[in-house]
């Protein structure tokens, strides 16, 4: 008689079912938990007589297609979020409001325009120089902010790589444990849940896909190589290459690991491409500003008139190498430089024209040519320490590059006294020093003595024609066919557009991820109400089995009573 066996098997199966309902309800809000259910089968003896019920297996509900899509979506989402955060900071660093570079540029040229009304008012020159210093300061600040941001992003890359290494190790460890359990024929459902969670976290940081192996083991593959194979985890490191770009390599290999997306992919793209690109545009803008403004300043005259000495602020690497190969920040063209030499005693002025060809002439050659052309009245030399060009007038002489008519007059003034652009290229008598957003500054002696600001082309106090040329720089199309402030606006708008696009894509991606999560939940998630129905079911089963056993017991009692 197997009525007792049947009853006890029903009690055992029912209580196992109750346990699982409890486990499901307890983990209804646990992230990554997959609901489980008992699979009951009827048992028979000899294939004929029923012997009760048994728990054949426990099903862990999962949805592999949804999971694969979620892993891919995680990587996209991670990259978008990382890039959005960085782009927003670049946008903030550029300072696009009135206090930023664009506003400062406008303000500088407005001040220059206003000074044309009173070029003889030395106090009115201060605001122009202050505005120039503001431009330099705002460019310095923006550049420093962007550089700090890049360093920060580099630090984040290191952190993310460490996290990836930790996750990979943990996944490999879980692989080992799961294989241990499942090779014995048991089910390691809770370990699988934990491992899925780790793979999920990993996929937010880099793009991976999962390949299932026997005994519940998974291999995790990146775009260009394995991350976890069975119980072995790759370990990565990020290090800068000679160009300063961060390259991720796996331990024991020098081959770069391609990371297309995920937080790491997004951060690498920002660090290696997008931030340097924004920085380069800022430097390009600075170079355009410095070259154009310095050229105007160098070919004008300050309120003190011609100069007795001038020193360039840009040095060459080798004063005997041709200028075209000297690596100057501003190129020198083939052309000429007109040096006006004034005799301080008589007031007579002569113009000496020096032909300059950067392809053949070195800085030494240029210095020699200037000294020779002026008959030694202006001694041009190369500074032995800085390798910059130096001008010194002999006693009784002064020099300038304004291209004025000679005295006594002998024709017309030179329209462009420096067609070679040698003055701005070598930083002679410029308004700004430096050539990048980091090192641009107002030349210290002009900041200290505003009279050096070249307002005129004739040296007369009421002449503001050089200021007019300076004010016209703002409307000149520089590199890229844009004006200075146009270029800055375009840069700010491009970054702003990135922020908006990335934000929109992130929102859209979040919607996709919600849908995918809902899909996965519809299979793997715990519905408490459903579990309560199962609970009632198992409750009835246990109650029924108990009642059954009690009835069987009474029946047996009755039979035993016959004997008594």
């Amino acid at each position, binding site marked *: 008689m197997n009525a007792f066996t049947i009853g006890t098997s029903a009690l055992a199966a029912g209580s196992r079912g109750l346990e699982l309902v409890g486990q499901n309800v307890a983990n209804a809000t646990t992230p990554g938990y997959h609901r489980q259910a008992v699979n009951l089968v009827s048992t028979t003896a000899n294939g004929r007589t029923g012997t009760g019920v048994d728990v054949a297996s426990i099903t862990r509900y999962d949805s592999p297609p949804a999971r694969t899509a979620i892993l891919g979506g995680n990587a996209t989402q991670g990259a978008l979020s990382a890039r959005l955060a960085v782009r927003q900071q670049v946008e903030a660093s550029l300072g696009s409001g009135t206090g930023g570079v664009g506003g400062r540029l406008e303000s500088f*040229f407005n001040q220059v325009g206003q000074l044309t009304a009173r070029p003889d*008012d030395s106090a009115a020159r201060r605001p122009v120089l202050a505005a120039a210093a503001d431009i330099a300061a705002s460019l310095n600040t923006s550049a420093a902010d962007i550089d700090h941001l890049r360093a920060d992003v580099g630090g984040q890359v290191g952190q993310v790589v460490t996290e990836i290494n930790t996750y990979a190790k943990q996944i490999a460890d879980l692989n080992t444990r799961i294989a241990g359990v499942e090779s014995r024929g048991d089910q390691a459902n809770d370990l699988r849940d934990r491992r899925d969670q780790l793979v999920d976290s990993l996929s937010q940081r880099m793009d991976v896909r999962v390949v299932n192996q026997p005994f519940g083991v998974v291999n995790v593959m990146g775009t260009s190589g394995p991350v976890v194979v069975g119980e072995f985890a790759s370990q990565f490191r990020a290090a800068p290459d000679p160009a300063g770009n961060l390259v991720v390599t796996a331990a024991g290999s020098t081959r770069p690991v391609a990371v297309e997306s995920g937080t790491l992919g997004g951060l690498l793209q920002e660090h290696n491409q997008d931030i340097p690109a924004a920085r380069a545009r800022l430097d390009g803008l600075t170079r355009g500003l410095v070259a154009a403004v310095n050229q105007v300043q160098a070919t004008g005259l300050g309120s003190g008139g011609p100069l007795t000495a001038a020193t360039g602020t840009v040095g060459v690497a080798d004063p005997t190498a041709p200028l075209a190969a000297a690596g100057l920040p501003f190129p020198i063209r083939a052309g000429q430089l007109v040096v006006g030499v004034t005799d301080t005693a008589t007031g007579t002025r002569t113009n000496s024209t020096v032909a300059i060809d950067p392809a053949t002439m070195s800085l030494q050659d240029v210095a020699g040519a200037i000294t020779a052309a002026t008959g030694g009245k202006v001694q041009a030399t190369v500074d032995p320490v800085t390798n910059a060009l130096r001008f010194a007038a002999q006693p009784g002489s002064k020099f300038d590059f304004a291209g004025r008519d000679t005295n006594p007059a002998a024709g017309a003034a030179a329209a462009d006294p420096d067609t070679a652009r040698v003055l701005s290229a070598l930083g002679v008598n410029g308004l700004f020093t430096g050539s990048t957003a980091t090192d641009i500054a107002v030349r210290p002696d002009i900041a200290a003595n505003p009279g050096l600001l070249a307002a005129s082309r004739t040296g*007369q106090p009421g002449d503001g024609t050089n200021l007019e040329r300076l004010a016209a720089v703002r409307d000149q199309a520089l590199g890229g066919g844009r004006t200075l402030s146009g270029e800055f606006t375009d840069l700010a708008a491009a970054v702003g557009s990135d922020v908006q696009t990335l934000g929109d894509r992130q929102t859209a991606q979040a919607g996709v991820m919600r849908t995918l999560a*809902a899909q996965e939940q519809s299979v793997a998630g715990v519905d408490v*109400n459903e579990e309560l129905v199962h609970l009632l079911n198992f409750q009835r089963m246990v109650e029924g089995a108990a009642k059954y056993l009690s009835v069987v017991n009474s029946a047996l009692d009755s039979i035993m009573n016959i004997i008594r």
Partner: protein
Amino acid sequence: MNVRVTGQTQTNSAVAYLRQNAAGLAKYQDQVSSGLRVKLPSDDPAQYPALARARAAGERLGAYAGTLAAANTDLNAGVGALQEATSVLTRAKQIAVEGADAGTDQQGATALATEVDGLIARMLSAANTEQDGAYLFGGTATGSPPFAADAAGNPTTITYNGTADRGRGLIGPGQTVDTKYAGAAVFQRPGADVFQTLIGLRDDLRNPGAGGKSQAINARLGAIDAALDAVGDTTAEQASHLAGLDALQGRMTDLKLTADTRAGEIEGTDYFDAVVRMRAQENALQATMAVSAKLLQPSLLDFIR
């Protein structure tokens, strides 16, 4: 169709929509409170370049207003000085007529000559007029008096020390107005030299030549008229520039207003739109809250007794 909707699905979507609607509400709340729709380029990248241009144009036109005002002051002072020169020459003409009159004896003529000395000094002072520390008739040499007499009180020659170029101010993109005129072209035109005419008149009055004073002085009348014409020409030129500046100032003000309005239109909050949208977001948020509260409550537990 998902037939199984779990608690986590409901919670996740409730949280997501609450966040989304709260963020939308915050965005419009910020727009309404700050009055600005575009604070950063990313708020409206397509319109940002137009905004930057409009803002720059507004500030630039504002800066030109400053130079316009300075030019206006200079030209007004110039016209004032030239009017003084005209009245000096007019008086000189009266003196010349009086001196040429046969009824004026030498004593009277000498008295008139002394008055002409005063007129020369007045003319010199008019030609050396300063405005805010800058000489108006020295061309670009604004730092020193343009006209110098060889002797005080009884000068015989007046030298021009200024430049032949005029000083000018930038009043628009590539647009300038001459404000500091070259004095030589005003007071010392060939054939219409104001100072030489006055000096000659004085000398004729004081020391009439062999031909008699009437003849000499009558000859001076023509020169005085030529000098008056020369000064009158410049006065007319400066006055017409002044009128032009007034018109330009009006146009600049209009243009600045247009630019500022354009900037305001782009960056400013459209209150009707923003308030209505804020209201809609608020409703959406409240609805999400109400629905979340309602949906998350019912459970089979309520029915198992």
